[in-house]
């Protein structure tokens, strides 16, 4: 029996407003098992929510419940190699898009709103142009690459390359099979993540460890596939994503943080203006960095809900 004076167990943290999903299930995406999560009642109108690269659905533990409490069935998933989804041999943009379609297929064949952050926002913006008959509205939360970087998408963010970069990338692939993530305490993992997320609180980052890392004998490890790496190279260029933006035919809202930071795309309203689809809007969220929905969950959820007002079937 535990003493009333015992310190809190090391494996739980709470965070104001955070709520784990109401339901979990799995979806098979061409042989890769994806972890799918739902907040809200099953008979509410569905909405698909996509996380950013190197995140996981649990990063929506505050944001998703606000949308759910406003009457939506919020469905999200861990992208392949992230969170509790299966690790795959290969990772690539179009494979991530087809995974998103597999999750969508598991919800409904009718139109649904799409909401995504960072890489997830860009991903769903492409999906909205690729299967317009399945989409009713789109909200992109700080997920529009411009001419600047797209740090959370591997292998796609650089056109210029040098022999040494290529050799480094190839050398890494020789040793990848044995890669494991470095173990640590909750505080250590939170501190490591904090370097990429300098605007987020320690309290939040430590909470994320308890939902996005697993506790093993030698400490906590982030669940993300250790073979996933940021950056890299490839023929892709950010302006191709801007061109996809113009394809979108449903009500479109882009929310952009004003404070530039490491994981952000550095895109401004001016960068986006020329590519907005008819009727589309790009709006700044003042005093917010890249993780706008974590810094200002109520404000951003309010903007999303306003945009979706009247969209539900």
């Amino acid at each position: 029996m535990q003493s009333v004076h015992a310190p809190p167990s090391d494996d739980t943290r709470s965070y104001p407003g955070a709520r784990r999903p109401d339901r979990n299930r799995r979806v098979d995406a061409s042989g890769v098992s994806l972890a799918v999560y739902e907040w809200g009642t099953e008979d509410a109108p569905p909405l698909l929510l996509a996380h950013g690269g190197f995140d996981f659905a649990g990063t929506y533990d505050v944001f998703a419940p606000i949308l759910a409490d406003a009457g939506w069935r919020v469905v999200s998933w861990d992208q392949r190699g992230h969170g509790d989804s299966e690790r795959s041999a290969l990772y690539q943009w179009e494979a991530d898009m087809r995974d998103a379609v597999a999750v969508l297929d598991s919800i409904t064949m009718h139109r649904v709103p799409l909401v995504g952050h960072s890489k997830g926002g860009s991903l769903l913006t492409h999906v909205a142009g690729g299967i317009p008959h399945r989409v009713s509205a789109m909200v992109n939360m700080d997920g529009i690459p411009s001419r600047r970087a797209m740090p959370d998408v591997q292998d796609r963010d650089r056109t210029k390359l040098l022999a040494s970069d290529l050799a480094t990338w190839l050398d890494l692939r020789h040793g990848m099979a044995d890669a494991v993530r470095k173990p640590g305490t909750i505080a250590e993992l939170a501190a490591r993540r904090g370097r990429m997320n300098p605007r987020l609180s320690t309290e939040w980052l430590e909470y994320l460890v308890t939902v996005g890392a697993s506790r093993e004998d030698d400490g906590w490890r982030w669940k993300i596939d250790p073979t996933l790496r940021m950056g890299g190279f490839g023929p892709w260029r950010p302006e191709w994503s801007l061109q996809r933006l113009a394809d979108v035919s449903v009500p479109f809202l882009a929310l952009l943080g004003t404070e530039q930071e490491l994981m952000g795309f550095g895109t401004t309203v001016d960068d986006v203006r020329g590519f907005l689809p008819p009727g589309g809007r790009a709006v700044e969220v003042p005093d917010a960095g890249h993780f706008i929905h974590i810094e200002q969950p109520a404000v951003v959820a309010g903007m999303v809900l306003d945009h979706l007002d009247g969209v539900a079937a």
Partner: protein
Amino acid sequence: MTNASTTPTILRHNRIDLALWELRPGTGRPLLLLHGLGENASTGIRDEMETWEGPVHGLDFTGHGASSVATGGGYFCEILMADADIALQHLGSATVVGRGLGGYIALLIAGARPEQVRGAVILDGPGLHGGGPAPTSLDLNRPPHTGSTPDPVAMTELARDVRPPDYARTFAWQASALAEMDSVIAIGAVNRPPWLVEVASQPGVVECDLATALALFGRAPDASPRES
């Protein structure tokens, strides 16, 4: 002369097992064959290779031949370049001959490993065009997951891989600048997708048939050790 081996050497590339076949034995610098989209290692062997003194090896790319399938896909050309790099590490150095998709990969690996690739030959074959020089319309249909090769997901994804001419040019330029050979890339293909038109205009790139290219690269000395 001994016969070609009937079982491949299995090489590990992250979570994939790659099959590298010795198609014909020999003594000297190996020839590494890279097949076209949907083909496999044995597709590319040709009469012109009979005069090549070294062994002739063929690599099955990920999702092809006896190599394993990347379940759920995610194929792109740089991954196949890394497949070729794993084979090169096993062989030491090689002259590379690629058909179609394999021709584009031959260019990439020649640019990425200029000391180890002693000449790359680009020939016609399936997948030479890729997805064109810029993105085209999206295709979000999900190809069937069969687990067999050639993997339908590989066929879909690698037929769409975008190949901008300026990207291909960087690899040609790098191969030519760093390989210390007068000619480093030979184009024996009749078809000329935009990336190959661009490569053809670069220094160190010649246009000739396979026999001429093999004679040219067969005479090329091995690279001097890299100073670090």
